[in-house]
């Protein structure tokens, strides 16, 4: 079967981000990139599913700036067979991203039997691409998946809903599965895997190649600014009993007027 995995390259969580000069995105020149952690679960699930379904191939798809291919290479080193990169700005909106992924899958000439993604990217936290992709491809989609069983395209999927409850879905035929933390334990890229990865195919397409253009823009980004710095905390002296009533009144007043939490 043909398994596709969609991954995003996101800034390392320890990165200090700054807006770029025209405020349309963050400055990307000195960022350390990592694979979106939720996508790691998708890659791992693809590898597990491939191991259980002999003859499967896994193709990983990423939409983003071409200069850094390390995250795709990490997926190849983990054991994915092929990679497709759609060269596009890093701040593409969710609709364009979904359309680009669809275009890339179609251009591969393979029919997708299963598409795995992370449930969200930890940079912009849009939580839209898996559902948009499923809609565009006219496939069912199941998100926040924490349990995955079955062979081929006959799957039993468990998804988390509010309040810790679990919904169980049975699917047959191709679908989009968006993975959540806890689904599995993503493996390391082994060193032999890293050495083999350089020989695996990596196709690069432009947005135009796969039919995405300016008419597909749904979101215009502007005014990226850092959140205002938090003011220093206030300290109140109330060691002496006589002071305490006044201090409590003052604190409650400030919580009302300044912090506006009461």
């Amino acid at each position, binding site marked *: 079967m043909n398994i596709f995995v969609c991954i995003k390259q996101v800034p390392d969580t320890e990165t200090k981000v700054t807006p770029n000069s025209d405020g349309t995105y963050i400055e990307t020149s000195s960022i350390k990139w990592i694979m979106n952690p939720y996508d790691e679960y998708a890659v791992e699930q693809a590898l597990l599913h491939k191991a259980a379904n002999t003859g499967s191939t896994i193709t990983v798809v990423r939409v983003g700036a071409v200069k850094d291919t*390390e995250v795709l*290479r990490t997926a190849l*080193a983990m054991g994915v067979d092929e990679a497709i990169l759609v060269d596009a700005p890093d701040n593409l909106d969710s609709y364009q991203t979904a359309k680009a992924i669809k275009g890339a899958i179609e251009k591969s000439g393979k029919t997708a039997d299963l598409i795995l993604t992370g449930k969200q990217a930890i940079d912009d936290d849009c939580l839209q691409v898996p559902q948009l992709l499923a809609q565009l491809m006219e496939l069912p989609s199941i998100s926040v998946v924490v349990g995955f069983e079955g062979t081929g395209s006959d799957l039993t999927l468990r998804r988390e809903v509010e309040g810790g409850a679990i919904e169980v879905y049975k699917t047959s035929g191709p679908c989009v599965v968006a993975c959540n933390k806890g689904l599995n334990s993503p493996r390391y890229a*082994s*060193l*032999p895997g*890293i*050495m083999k*990865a*350089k020989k695996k195919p990596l196709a690069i397409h432009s947005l135009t190649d796969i039919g995405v253009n300016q008419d597909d823009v749904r979101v215009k980004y502007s005014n990226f600014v850092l959140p205002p710095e938090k003011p220093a905390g206030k300290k109140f002296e109330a060691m002496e009993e006589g002071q305490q009533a006044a201090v409590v009144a003052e604190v409650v007043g400030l919580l009302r007027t300044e912090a506006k939490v009461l």
Partner: protein
Amino acid sequence: MMNFEYTIEQKEIREMAMKFARNEMMTVATEFDLSGEFPKSLFEKAWSHGLINTCIPEEYGGVGFSAVDSVIISECLSYGCMGMNSSIMSNDLALLPIVIGGTHEQKEKFLRPFTESYKIASFCLTEPGNGSDAAGIKTTIKKDGDDFIVNGEKMWITNAGFADLFILYGTSDPSLKHKGITTIIIDPKTEGIVIGKSEKKMGHRCSDTRGITFNNVRVPKENIIGKVGDGWAIAMKTLDHSRPLVAASALGGAQCALDHSVNYAKERVQFNTAIANHQAIQFMISNMVIKVEASRLLVTKAAWLLDKGESNTKVASSAKAFAADACMEICTDAVQIYGGYGYSVEYPVEKLMRDAKLIQIYEGTSQIQRIVIAKEIFSRS
């Protein structure tokens, strides 16, 4: 002409090895240091990810790492725990004589099994009476029909209690000094081998270290590496390969101490400001950075020369001496920066200081390295 950039694969190797070091090693390093237990299952996991036996060539089942790749791995794993890395690296030290001097049959027979499952090899050179004076070793390897008989005592043998293979240096005739030195592969289960108790050490406490006694141990002649008397040449070539690895382990420990120090200096407040704002602390940290950067250049150059097939003895010994001394100084300063907390086992840096000391001693002391460097200067010109 000059290029300081790692290849894409080397960057990925570093990334992966650091991830393993941080997630799998650093998290349990203190626990194993305190218990002194040999972390075998952790080593098995490292092996399954290709982090162990970096010296085995591709044609015998290895990954096919360059020397530069190998020192990157050694640095990263040592960052995770210098003691664990000693036990990991010890396999390379032991197997390198086979890689360098073994026949095709010996490589198939002895190297390939190390790529099929996690196995442990011990390098048996040092004796109770001979450390730095390696040419003076007294363990004898005497011909007896189609076999050789090994007699003698070895000391400070890493991983001895868990080894699947011993690579032993002995002498066919002690009066021949280095011309009599011979290298032989021994199955640790052979009759006549008595493995001593685990030594209690200041650092590298989870790395298994023992003495071994060989009493009339019979070994088939196919197990001699090269010819009788080739041992010294094999040992010297092995050291050219192993010194960059050991130097890299010092570098890894030093980088770890540096990173801890920077983080602590930013957090610790004295005189109403983070101690990172005090010039005395800044200078200590700057000196650490200078030594780490210089160590990395030396280590990488020593490995790069090997990959180019050029003589690296002078640079490899410089790397080993400099990086080991630097690691000791940096780890000592890390304890100083942590102050009282640095002296506590609750914090990571006292272990680093204990672990650092050994790297100045094993695989050729810092003094022996300087003798090697001086010989390269004065005997070759």
